[in-house]
């Protein structure tokens, strides 16, 4: 008897592409549009080959106008289509912010529940690739601030594939953040590949001494830090938030109630960001369980620098996560 492999190993980039392909095969209402998504395959090669398979009607190279294609995506969604809009990077989503925040996120409310916007917006996020201040934002927390949006941050190949299908089923606008450092990362996709929930956080590594809470591109940092901490006899639990809005408090609080210590790791700027929100919730809900102040590892509050060594110094790193964890468990001053 031959045993069929029950996982496929592929890159995050390929997983997202397979997710799009799968959705487009299953549902004729799904189409992809954005800058250079056709022959070029998108800014990060995610859509390579899709034009050839689905044609120009369903894989649309748009004019260079972010507000244009997000606005048109909203219109198509209102008309019953299921558009996937790719914004080259989060940085340029700011040119479409009015369409996203003022319109996509509020139309259900403004129409008394009569209109809904089943639009999926994908964008690359994050720094670390020496692209300078205007190409290095991490605005997940910024978008997670907005009622009416669902904001997801896949960190694994399985989520890269599976969150998209679920997002397309969602009657409301979903923003998917793909961290630029993930595209070449390889991982396992269970077979047959299937949609995954976009409701719950996941424990990616069990531990007892403290909880590292993170998402997206920072998950790897935390897992590596957890390995190093383990070598030092510190057992860290790692939680991947996955969905940033609405946030799954339960998984986080259950863990912190058990470990009594928490460090939040997020690539966004420290003040008023995702890390601030999670830390505040832990303080509100787990105050009496905590044995140490909630720690945070986030980006330094400057426009992200271009020189490699400055950029690395500005961003969360494995060393900084380890240092924050050691402080939380009382191993450092």
């Amino acid at each position, binding site marked *: 008897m031959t045993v069929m492999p029950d996982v496929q190993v592929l890159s995050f980039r390929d997983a997202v592409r397979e997710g799009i392909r799968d959705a487009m095969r299953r549902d004729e209402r799904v189409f992809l549009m954005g800058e250079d998504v*056709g022959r070029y395959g998108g800014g990060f090669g995610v859509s390579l080959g899709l034009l050839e398979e689905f044609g120009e009607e369903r894989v649309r190279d748009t004019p260079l106008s972010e507000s244009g294609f997000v606005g048109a995506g909203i219109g198509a969604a209102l008309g019953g289509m299921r558009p996937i809009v790719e914004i080259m990077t989060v940085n340029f989503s700011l*040119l479409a912010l009015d369409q996203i925040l003022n319109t996509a996120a509020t139309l259900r409310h403004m129409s008394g529940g009569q209109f809904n916007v089943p639009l999926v917006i994908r964008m690359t996020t994050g720094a670390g690739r020496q692209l300078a201040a205007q190409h290095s934002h991490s605005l997940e927390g910024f978008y997670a601030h907005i009622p009416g949006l669902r904001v997801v941050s896949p960190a694994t190949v399985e989520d890269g594939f599976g969150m998209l299908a679920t997002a397309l089923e969602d009657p409301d606008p979903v923003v998917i953040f793909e961290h630029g450092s993930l595209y070449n990362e390889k991982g396992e996709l269970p077979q047959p590949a299937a949609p995954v929930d976009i409701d719950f956080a996941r424990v990616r590594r069990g531990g007892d001494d403290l909880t590292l809470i993170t998402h997206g591109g920072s998950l790897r940092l935390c897992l590596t830090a957890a390995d190093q901490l383990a070598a030092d006899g510190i057992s860290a639990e790692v939680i991947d938030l996955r969905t940033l809005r609405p946030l799954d408090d339960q998984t986080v609080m259950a863990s912190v109630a058990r470990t009594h210590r928490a460090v939040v790791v997020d690539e966004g700027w420290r003040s008023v960001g995702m890390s601030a929100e999670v830390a505040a919730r832990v303080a509100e809900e787990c105050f009496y369980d905590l044995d140490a102040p909630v720690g945070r590892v986030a980006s330094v509050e400057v426009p992200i620098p271009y020189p490699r060594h400055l950029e690395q110094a500005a961003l969360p790193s494995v060393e*900084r996560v380890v240092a924050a964890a050691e402080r939380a468990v009382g191993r450092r001053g």
Partner: protein
Amino acid sequence: MVDGMLGSAVQLLTPEGERVADEDYDISLSNAELKGLYRDMVLVRRLDSEATALQRQGELGLWASSLGQEAAQVGSGRSLLPGDYAFPTYRDHGVTWSRGVPPLEVLAMFRGVSTGGWDPIALRCAIYTIVIGNQALHAVGYGMGAQLDGSSEAVIGYFGDGATDEGDVNEAFVFAADFNAPVVFFCQNNQWAISSPRERKNPAPLYERAAGFGFPGVRVDGNDILAVMAVTRAALERARSGGGPTLVEAYTYRMAAHTTSDDPTRYRHAEELEIWRLRDPIERLKVFLARQGIADRGYFDQIDREAADLAVMIRDGVRSMPEPPAETMFDHVYAEPHEQLERQRRWLVDYESSFTHEVSS
């Protein structure tokens, strides 16, 4: 055919280097000026090829090549008076060159050892804009300010064909028309916006858009430096004398990749490049200068030697640029430091030194 509509463009010098007449535009330049334009273009091309090579060697983070667009950039840049103001894009090395920006200050930015690069006030040339289309509005606003000041300066805003899709550029057109701003919109239609082919996607000529906004638009052969200068000078003069905005579409071609991280063989054919190679802006001026007896072999050789010296200066200069210390990232966030940022600066300095200490001990 990607060059389908070059026909309607103002041209004073054919690709073969023949001087031709245009109904509306002409230019008369001294021999020294003509030779100077040749020199500018050769040196800018050398700056560009050195930078591309340095990026390949890992000495620059990124480079956006101006190859093939020298006439459009130098021709328009050299049309500016000293008091005029320019807003260039990331690709406009011929513009910054013409404004007197030292090449190493451009390269320092792409190397990532300096943020702003040159002095945008003294040189009357803004830093490069990277977010597509933004600067078109800045050019208009700058012009509105000049109007208020009662100054007679003109402003030139550069952008690409792709940028004309953005709201910002179209809004800039509306503003410039409404306020009769002393601005020249200089669009380099290099046929490509990364992988997006301008005319295959939308064949409506870009310069014709201006009419709908209420100001003149003109297409010029962007590889003909004489025509570019004639058209740009006229547009700048119109702006200075209260005539309002003009859209200049310089019809040209991006001969290199979009940037050093792009591979254009994925989306365009080599034949297209061959067509445009025959229209090279430097070659045609060289032929013209030689045929007219304005410059001889000795002159061309001298410029080549100058280019070689420039290359050495660039290579040595770039490699010896000092790396900024990490805490300089806090220097230009606000005019005045504040406590929150100072705390982070101190934290970083302490953290970095504790780290170095651990490593060295």
